């Protein structure tokens, strides 16, 4: 369109420019001002035409007002500036040569209509946009709600299907929601559960801090806590749970709900209690066992200043005999009765009785006053044993030996205390039993070696720490070597060479004597074979091996001996087994049977240490014995000259008695030539002692025999 300067078109454009400059700063359009002016130009044209139209058309002006809104003049200021512009410039630039007054009136009416049109358009746009954003919000909420619904359904399934009990309550403790698992645990209906308050769920076994934790949680000072808690079930039983309570907060972080998760641990707890009981109690007597006792002892020894402990270590005297003679069932019943009596002796707080094993019991007392109490406790125990115990219709008298250890807490370890008590108990036993002794450090120190040896014995055999020395047996008539006694030694890694008196009793006690004895027998028989092979004497060399009482009763004795002889290819007459007189006192036929069998095979049996026990001489005929070994006490007085005439008479008598029973007589402890001569005169057959040779390695005997043979 042409725009001749100051022509109508040019003036219209100038009006649009003025209008756009006035309004642009308050629009929100992203268009540039010139672009915006181009958007206003058609509107200016419509206004210009409406101004000059013959009839007034309000709709045209309204449309212009509305169009302003659609070019993003939504700020009311845009309308205000537009109307200012129209008022001031429309007639001036677009009125041409119309009647000024009419034009001004028309312009005013146009402004009114424009304002109405703007307002209506703005209202519609506002409503539409509000509608749109509300719809969008609703739509978005719908999407989220749908997702939430699915999530919630899933969570509900988890909640209901969970194996652990889940419950929610408000902060006042009112139960809001619980799941099936929780109801099943409590054995109540949902309604019952909902009617209750969390605060009512107290139980006598509640840990002291349980409700303090609860208070802290509902106050908002604690996010969660975990505890083991018991609940009452309506049927009177107890429900034990692993309980975790968490605080749930609202979006602003204020405490809102409490959430409880609980796991039924009733069964597990019972099982644990039972396992714990079984692990800490003796099945036979129901007393606490060694484990439990050690826990308590450890606690007592770890107690604070001023606290003391007193320990009685009891071992029954002769229990083994009861067990062996009446059988284990009777022995067990006896132990149960002893346990009951002991239990009644230690009923005060801080006292306990336990069975360590076998016939060994301990009683413990703790507190500040144990110095006095432990003596009383031991006395009560001794007293409790006085009345005979009736087992299988027999009245058994039970005695015990007690070792007492008493002292302040915090100085010794449980093992040290127990060892001291054990040693002290043995001291009581060695002193004859049926008594109690108080621990004494010096006695302990002596006994500790014994204790150490006992514990070292089993491995000593495996490690080959034992060896055998041989002491020759010499014929008094011609001075020839007829054999040797095998004497076992222990080369202890710390204590050096130990004699049999040091460890044979221990081996007897621990039962190691059986394998040790078998080993000695085997070694000795092997040695006998060697001698026989080398030393072709007219009278064959014989080996004497000691049998301990324990070996004597061992059922494998005969078989073991036969096996060894056969394996070594040695005749039975090359072996002489020495049995102490005391072991055979009162021996019945059962005990003698294996000896008889051995004797029948040709093995000689010697009665060792003869004369020390109160042997029934008449009994000698009954025993399968072929040799008497006179105890050294008879020959000691013959070391001097002249010898004690009484001793001479006694030995003479014994020898004569022995010979009349067809028994040979061997004397031990021969240390001088005079002694040997005297014994020869008295009629003794063989002798051993330092006069001939000390015990030594097998080679020495060989040399001795050679000397004898050549001499």
């Amino acid at each position: 369109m042409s725009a001749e300067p100051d022509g109508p078109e040019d003036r219209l454009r100038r009006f649009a420019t003025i209008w756009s400059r006035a309004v642009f700063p308050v629009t929100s359009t992203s268009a540039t001002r010139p672009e915006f002016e181009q958007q206003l130009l058609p509107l200016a044209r419509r206004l210009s035409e409406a101004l000059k139209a013959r009839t007034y058309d309000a709709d045209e002006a309204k449309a212009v007002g509305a169009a302003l809104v659609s070019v993003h003049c939504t700020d009311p200021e845009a309308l205000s500036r537009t109307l200012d512009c129209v008022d001031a410039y429309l007639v001036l630039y677009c009125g041409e040569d119309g009647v000024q007054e009419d034009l001004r009136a028309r312009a005013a009416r146009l402004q009114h209509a424009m304002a109405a049109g703007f307002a209506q358009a703005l209202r519609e746009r506002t409503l539409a946009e509000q509608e749109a954003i509300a719809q969008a919000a609703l739509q978005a909420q719908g999407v989220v709600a749908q997702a939430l619904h699915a999530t919630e359904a899933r969570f509900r399934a988890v909640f209901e299907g969970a194996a652990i009990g889940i419950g929610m309550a408000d902060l006042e403790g009112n139960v809001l929601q619980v799941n099936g698992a929780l109801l099943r645990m409590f054995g109540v209906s949902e309604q019952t559960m909902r009617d209750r308050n969390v605060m009512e769920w107290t139980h006598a076994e509640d840990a002291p801090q349980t409700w303090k934790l609860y208070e802290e949680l509902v106050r908002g000072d604690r996010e969660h806590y975990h505890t083991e808690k018991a609940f009452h079930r309506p049927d009177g039983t107890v429900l034990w749970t692993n309980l975790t309570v968490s605080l749930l907060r609202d979006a602003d972080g204020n405490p809102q709900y409490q959430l409880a998760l609980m796991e039924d641990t009733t069964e597990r707890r019972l099982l644990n209690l039972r396992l714990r009981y079984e692990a800490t109690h003796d099945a036979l007597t129901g007393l606490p066992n060694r484990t439990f006792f050690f826990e308590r002892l450890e606690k007592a020894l770890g107690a604070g200043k001023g606290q003391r402990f007193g320990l009685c270590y009891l071992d029954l005297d002769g229990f083994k005999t009861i067990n062996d003679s009446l059988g284990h069932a009777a022995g067990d019943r006896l132990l149960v009765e002893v346990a009951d009596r002991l239990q009644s002796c230690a009923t005060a707080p801080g006292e306990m009785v336990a069975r360590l094993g076998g016939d060994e019991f301990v009683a413990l007392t703790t507190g500040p006053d144990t110095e006095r109490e432990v003596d009383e406790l031991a006395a009560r125990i001794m007293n409790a044993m006085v009345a005979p115990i009736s087992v299988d219709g027999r009245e058994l008298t039970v005695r015990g030996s007690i070792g007492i250890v008493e002292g302040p807490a915090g100085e010794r370890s449980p093992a040290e205390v127990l060892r001291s008590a054990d040693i002290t108990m043995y001291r009581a036993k060695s002193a004859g039993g049926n008594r109690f002794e108080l621990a004494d450090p010096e006695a302990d120190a002596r006994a500790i070696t014994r204790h150490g040896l006992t514990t070292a014995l089993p491995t000593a055999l495996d490690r080959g720490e034992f060896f055998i020395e041989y002491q020759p047996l010499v014929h008094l008539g011609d001075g020839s070597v007829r054999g040797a006694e095998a004497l076992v030694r222990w080369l202890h890694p710390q204590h050096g060479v130990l004699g049999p008196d040091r460890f044979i009793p221990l081996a007897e006690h621990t039962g190691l004597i059986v394998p040790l004895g078998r080993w000695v027998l085997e070694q000795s028989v092997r040695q006998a074979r060697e001698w026989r092979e080398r030393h072709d004497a007219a009278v064959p060399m014989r080996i004497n091996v000691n049998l301990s009482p324990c070996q004597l009763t061992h059922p494998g004795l005969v078989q073991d001996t036969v096996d060894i002889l056969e394996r070594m290819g040695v005749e039975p007459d090359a072996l002489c087994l020495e049995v102490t007189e005391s072991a055979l006192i009162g021996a019945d036929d059962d005990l003698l049977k294996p000896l008889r069998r051995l004797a029948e095979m040709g093995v000689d049996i010697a009665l060792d240490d003869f004369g020390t026990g109160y042997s029934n001489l008449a009994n000698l005929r009954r025993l399968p014995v072929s040799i008497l070994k006179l105890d050294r006490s008879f020959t000691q007085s013959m070391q001097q000259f002249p010898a004690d005439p009484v001793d001479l008479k006694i030995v003479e008598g014994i020898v004569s008695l022995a010979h009349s029973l067809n028994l040979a007589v061997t004397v031990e402890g021969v240390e001088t030539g005079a002694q040997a001569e005297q014994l020869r005169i008295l009629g003794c057959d063989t002798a051993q002692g330092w006069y001939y040779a000390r015990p030594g390695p097998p080679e020495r005997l060989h040399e001795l025999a050679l000397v004898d043979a050549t001499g």
Partner: protein
Amino acid sequence: MERPAWAPRSIDISVPSVSRIYDYYLGGSHNFEVDREAARKAMEFMPGLPKIMQANRAFMRRAVSFAVDEGITQFLDIGSGIPTFGSVHEVAQAACGDAHVVYVDHDPVAVAHSEAVLAGNEGAGVVAADFRKPQEILASPEVQRLIDLNRPVALLLVAILHFVEDADDPYTAVAELRDALAPGSLLLLTHASYEGIPLPAERAEGAVDVYKDIRNPLIMRSREEIARFFEGYDMVEPGLVAMPHWRPDTAPEDEDPYAFSGFAGVGRTA
């Protein structure tokens, strides 16, 4: 139905939303009273805030036109908000009929509104996703359907990065997006800054605090910090400048002083 990873637990329209506040600044009514209240509070400190938004829109319009002139027909607008007038798809599709536009926002209301606006528009789509998870954006069905990553794309990060705190590592996200784009792609970016605001910083801080209060903190970055977003891009002339100075159609001197707040720039991948 699986809850999309982006979906919040609930829509709370009692909490102001930055996209609805933005709409209010632009004279729109796609907003609620809470949004307007927050906007009015911010405007108490910075009355010219609407002018900054307007300058953003104007820059975006010019930059999109520039991209079309460069031959780019694919647009990925992250943080698109509520598309009122002069949106990317309007500008792009007006200039090039078959331009493809994907809007991305994490505000579910903005997404729902965009869906309504774009209903029936074959060349445009909207993704509900978070800028901080670029891989989710790139893997979305809309991006897969509308954008060919083997050809150059115009990536719009207009007025969004100043809502991402350093703790959320915006630089890494921007780099991940860059690495996914074909050579010749453009990054169109604007970012708020204390630089250029025609007010003392203390006053501007008042407005910043309003955003902090509505839990959408506004992270004002220096020009240097903003320039780092263009790592791996060659800056298009005139570089990183105040919005009115970026390839203006009209004399920058005529612009409102507030329009010079913050920075705008376009970069091109090699």
